[in-house]
């Protein structure tokens, strides 16, 4: 049940317990208990909403920043990652294999704010060796969902 439950609420976190239970073929108590367990185990970490901000009047600029750092003795990358993710404007931090170490997603209202974050806060951290900032121009697909595409049912109405 666990895998199927996770797949369902990853797609739709608003699905009610009653519906979850029916779709999974279990009773509501079982579904509720499993959800609580998943939360306690830190497997479910939040219930978010996927928003296409481009369609709102709210201005947002998102940047992907590649960061090269010097890992610290005894703590590897964790310490420097924490230094970075503590900033609320940082939306995600991933440790990456390959040409650089950390991939940081940053969300601000203006380009200028991003620039100042990178130059004033990020680059000045002791273990940060270099940064490369990329701005997101358009989001086509996020979290497995394609933005701006209505799927029409093109099947014949009745087929044997």
């Amino acid at each position: 049940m666990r895998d199927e439950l996770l797949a369902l609420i990853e797609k739709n976190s608003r699905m009610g317990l009653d519906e979850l239970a029916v779709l999974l073929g279990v009773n509501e108590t079982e579904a509720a208990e499993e959800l609580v367990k998943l939360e306690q185990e830190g497997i479910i970490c939040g219930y978010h909403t996927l928003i296409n901000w481009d369609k709102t009047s709210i201005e947002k600029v998102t940047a992907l920043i590649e960061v090269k750092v010097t890992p610290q003795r005894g703590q590897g990358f964790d310490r420097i990652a924490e230094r970075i993710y503590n900033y609320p404007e940082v939306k995600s931090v991933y440790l990456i294999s390959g040409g650089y170490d950390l991939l940081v997603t940053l969300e601000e209202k203006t380009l200028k704010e991003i620039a100042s974050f990178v130059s004033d806060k990020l680059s000045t951290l002791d273990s940060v060796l270099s940064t490369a900032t990329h701005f997101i121009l358009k989001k086509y697909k996020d979290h497995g969902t394609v933005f701006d595409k209505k799927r029409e049912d093109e099947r014949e109405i009745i087929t044997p």
Partner: protein
Amino acid sequence: MTKPLSEAVESLKPSGIRKFFDLVSEMKDAISLGVGEPDFDTPWHIRDEGIFALEKGKTFYTSNAGLKELREEICNYLKRRQNVSYNPNKEVLVTVGGSEAIDIGLRALVNPGDEVIIPQPSYVSYEPCAVLAGAKPVIIDLKAENEFRLTADELKAAITDKTKVLILPFPNNPTGAIMERKDLEDIAKIIKENDIYVMSDEIYAELTYKNEHVSIASLDGMKERTILINGFSKAYAMTGWRLGYACAPENIIKQMTKIHQFAIMCAPTTSQYAAVEALKNGDDDVKMMKTAYNQRRRFLINAFKEMNLECFEPFGAFYVFPCIKEFGMTSEEFATRFLEEEKIAVVPGNAFGESGEGFVRISYAYSIDSLKIALKRLKNFVDRLRKS
């Protein structure tokens, strides 16, 4: 021209679904639950392989039997999933959908006057194909109290000394019924005793929600008398690619290949390349779709229970077949009124044979959100009928 057309063809009744289709087409904003094909797009990696085949200029005929690589993959698949072994060089024919395999399989098997046993409710083309092949269809009316499975007694009662073939349509369209190993063993005994052939249409084999599907060809002594039909339409959401296959003993495939060669030449080449990819790397897609179908199936069965609508729990395909006898209407009357009053299209059960009278077929090849709307309207309709 005044000369008459073919009597055999003119005598065929048009598909019962067609009539209803015309009615639904006039209704602009109807929600349909009447579709017999997956709502999923063909998985992208499979489509991509088709595109790649086109780009590389693979636009010629293949051999009559189909691409060798595809036949080999079909055999690997059947060994892996159904535990039956076929020789890719002699015992496999790639066809234009499972439908072609039904047609040419019957034509390869029967002589005029031979009887073909067809359990109903079932897919609409068995009976006309049997008639066109010159056979006499013998119908078995499957029963709701048996969950629309075929029983040994029913089969025994239908067999005569003219019986040539039994068509075995499980998992079943329109009822969603399945035949489990025990059910198959019971009828296999009678089939062997009476020395008849089986045409096993297993196009929904991947879509079972209880135990894994068992092919009758995998039972002892059955492979040598069975034409196993399967295809890509339902499992891989590839209906428009028109690709299926038949597996059978060499002597039968040889005759079927003759008809196929003269009537069709070969199945579409692009589709064949895409199908190789489906069989090689498509297991996860099948699993994902099957999980989604199963959730919708549970959703529908639960909704029927809540509105007290009689329906056995089907474990196959993507159909439910609720009983509407309590409303004192024929299936067609029910479906027509439901369409007119609530704008939902379901298929009258009698389109699949007389024994489907008193039932309607509801497809769950739709998103949960569409099913929710449709079920709400079904509840309104049922409540209204019960009050009046």
